């Protein structure tokens, strides 16, 4: 055995720094990978937002326009008002479809066969006579003249003109056959087809015909529901928050209330619908499908949101305000109502607006209480049968007609616009009144 000599090559001492250095490359690669995964996740999240909005807007923007056909319509006095009295009753019961059909026949004199004629007539919406009637009733002098009138086109023609139905697709896979396509192209050449701003969409109730369907009824339903919800839930929410935050003694009852509020905020909304059905409709006999019941359900649903937000707002008011008020002799209630509440109000309003925004988009519980009914009339009160915007979207999304796809998307755009507006107001309110103490 020879002694190891000093200059013999030694096994290198494994110092920590070497271990670290050896692993650095791998670890840095790992670091980069991890970071990239994070960036991808964020990008995916953003992509979903963009995709969702692009999809909805892409599908829906065309619904804000509606196709009209220009037809020279002869409003003969013998047909509409044979007695010549111009009485509103006679005018409103007259047949206005006949002159429109006559005008169509006049445009295409070569069409004589019955089946073809039926197709020709189907180019005009079944609602077209109603608008013609309104025009005539407004201006009875039109009777006896021939007027160039823009009449509402059927939804299939509308889809074709907007390019939603591919003209070059084979005839059998197209809802509009070659003959009708020919007529449409003929009218287009003459400049008798025009797309105009879709006022029907904003002024009418729903309909089975896409070209006649509007969101006015649903908007009014949503308006009444939200108004009543706000009237009920804001005072109740603020009162509850004030009590829980400022007055409540720490005991089992208030603990129970607190646990309850937090849990209610996370109960699935459909369960509130069951509650509304069993208690408000089943037990108290409140009228079904009305904004009244909807608002009661929504109130219970939004209360936790408002209570929680209001408590946060109350917490942010510094104790010195309370102490000063109490110090000059205000009673506890005066302190709260005269000094703390006004300072906390912007925060509470923000919470209320956010709660209202959620209530505006809520659908499931309203299906339970019968808001799914098909209601054409625009509601004019809290106890009229009504539907609301999201439920209308749900109903339209279920309709098979091609024309409803764009109208559903357009209704969604309107809904999102309202939500955006409400959130904007909430943010501005917060910015404007937020105080740092």
């Amino acid at each position, binding site marked *: 055995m020879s002694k190891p000599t000093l200059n013999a090559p030694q096994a290198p001492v494994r110092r920590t720094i070497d271990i670290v250095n050896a692993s650095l490359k791998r670890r840095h690669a790992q670091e980069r990978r991890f970071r990239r995964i994070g960036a991808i*996740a964020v990008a995916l999240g953003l992509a979903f937002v963009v995709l969702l909005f692009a999809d909805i807007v892409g599908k829906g923007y065309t619904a804000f326009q509606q196709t009209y056909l220009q037809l020279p319509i002869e409003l003969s006095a013998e047909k509409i008002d044979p007695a010549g009295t111009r009485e509103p009753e006679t005018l409103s019961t007259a047949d206005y479809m006949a002159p429109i059909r006559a005008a169509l026949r006049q445009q295409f004199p070569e069409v004589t066969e019955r089946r073809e004629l039926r197709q020709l007539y189907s180019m005009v919406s079944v609602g077209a006579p109603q608008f013609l009637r309104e025009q005539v009733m407004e201006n009875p002098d039109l009777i006896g003249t021939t007027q160039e009138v823009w009449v509402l086109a059927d939804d299939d023609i509308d889809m074709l003109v907007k390019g939603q139905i591919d003209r070059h697709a084979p005839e059998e896979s197209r809802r509009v056959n070659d003959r009708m396509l020919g007529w449409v192209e003929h009218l287009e050449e003459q400049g008798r087809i025009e797309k105009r701003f879709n006022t029907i969409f904003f002024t009418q109730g729903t309909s089975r015909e896409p070209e006649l369907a509007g969101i006015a009824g649903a908007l009014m339903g949503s308006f009444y529901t939200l108004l009543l919800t706000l009237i009920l839930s804001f005072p109740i929410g603020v009162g509850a928050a004030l009590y829980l935050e400022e007055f409540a003694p720490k005991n089992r009852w208030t603990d129970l209330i607190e646990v309850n509020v937090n849990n209610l905020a996370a109960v699935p909304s459909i369960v509130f619908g069951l509650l509304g059905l069993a208690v408000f409709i089943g037990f108290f006999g409140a009228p079904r499908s009305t904004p009244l019941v909807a608002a009661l359900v929504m109130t219970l649903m939004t209360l936790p949101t408002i209570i929680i937000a209001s408590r946060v707002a109350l917490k942010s008011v510094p104790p010195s305000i309370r102490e000063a008020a109490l110090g000059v002799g205000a009673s506890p209630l005066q302190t709260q109502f005269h000094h703390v509440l006004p300072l906390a109000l912007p925060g509470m309003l923000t919470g209320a607006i956010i709660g209202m925004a959620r209530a505006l988009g809520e659908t499931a519980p309203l299906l339970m209480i019968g808001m799914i009914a098909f209601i054409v009339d625009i509601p004019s009160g809290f106890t009229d049968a009504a539907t609301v915007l999201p439920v209308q979207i749900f109903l339209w999304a279920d309709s098979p007609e091609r024309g409803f796809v764009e109208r559903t998307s357009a209704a969604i755009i309107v809904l999102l616009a309202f939500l955006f507006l409400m959130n904007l107001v909430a943010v501005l309110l917060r910015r404007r009144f937020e105080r740092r103490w």
Partner: protein
Amino acid sequence: MYAWTLIVVLLMVMALAYHLGRKRAIASAGGVTQINTLHSLPSYYGLYAAIWAGLPALLLMGLWFGFQDQIVTSLVTANLPAEMLDGQSSGRVGLILNDIKNLATGNIVSATVTPEVQAAADQYARLARIANWAMWLAVLAVAVGGMAYAWLRTEPQMRARNRVESIFKFIMITFSSIAILTTLGIVLSVVFESFRFFQMISPLEFFLGTNWSPQIALRADQVGASGAFGAIPLFTGTLMVSLIAMLVAVPIGLMSAIYLAEYAPRNVRSIAKPVIEVLAGIPTVVYGFFAALTVAPLIRDLGALAGLNVASESALAAGLVMGIMIIPFVSSLSDDVINAVPQSMRDGSYALGATQSETIRRVIIPAALPGIVGGILLAVSRAIGETMIVVMAAGLSANLTANPLDSVTTVTVQIVTLLTGDQEFDSAKTLAAFALGLTLFLVTLVLNVIALSIVRKYREQYE
């Protein structure tokens, strides 16, 4: 006469009472110069009178609205000829009563109108009219009586402020108890109806049966009269959709929260975070539309390209879109807890030479784990209770399957389907919806309680 008119009239009476009470207080003190002899400010005497005028009347009105319909209905029912009700199920009686009410209010009636029904409808309309007038009289009488009472009680020594304040306090206590009443209402309504359901269908069959076809015939002689109420396919369907949703939401939500909290420059964070949170504010019906009309056809086409047979309403489409919806829940809750981890723990880890990702994975995530788990549990409860996406995109057939490309149905879908058709309150079909609702409520309640307590414990740990 509309109820709203009555409310407006009542408000006017209250305003009058306020004015009178205030004036009376000043007069009883001996004029404006002497009001320092009053116990409270004059406006409190006014408020006192207004409360006495308004509160009892409003309470009476609320009670009247709550019970008028029941009382009138029972009076009408009692007057119906006995042979109309004998041997009828309570569901049939409900239908008859509905017809009577519709007839009375001039709506469309489902059955032919017999003279008895017509008579009952007339009686109903008459009673309702009488009740309405009686309510006006009673409410206004109570309002004026209350005002008079307060007016007589007004004297300089009366502690008006204290009384008003204690009434306000009482009102606030009532308001805060509404949360409890709501929970109580939910529990009672679903438990009561579920109890009736479980009297017809044994709980064993409901919770362990694998066949769900709730179409019960209305009459016993119809074909296929007995429905099957085995809810296992619904539970598995719900679990599958939720699982797919969580598989989408948890990785994306968690990783984006980590990236935004730890890596992203301030300006990226200030834009990306609110934009992602936009996803949380979009109504679920919009997601449902997106799932049914965009994602489902896309998946079906992709599946067709790959030679797979995808149902047009697949669990995958619903789950994916639900996952997108849940991303912001996971990400903002995780973001909160990650930011709550004290900086000293990060600094300690860096000082030992760990890279940023190692710090995150070995230090921050373990420290934040309870909070993250709590957030994920909340998200799961949200996924289970989500309704519109699955109603619009998941389908109705109760398949017991593990294939995400198949159509499945969920608990919430079935609740909606069972309760939105024409319904009778007594059939097992309708009651089944409440049993499902009870199950849903209990499961989400347990998840929420666990999640909230975890999150709260976690917060306390670092505060």
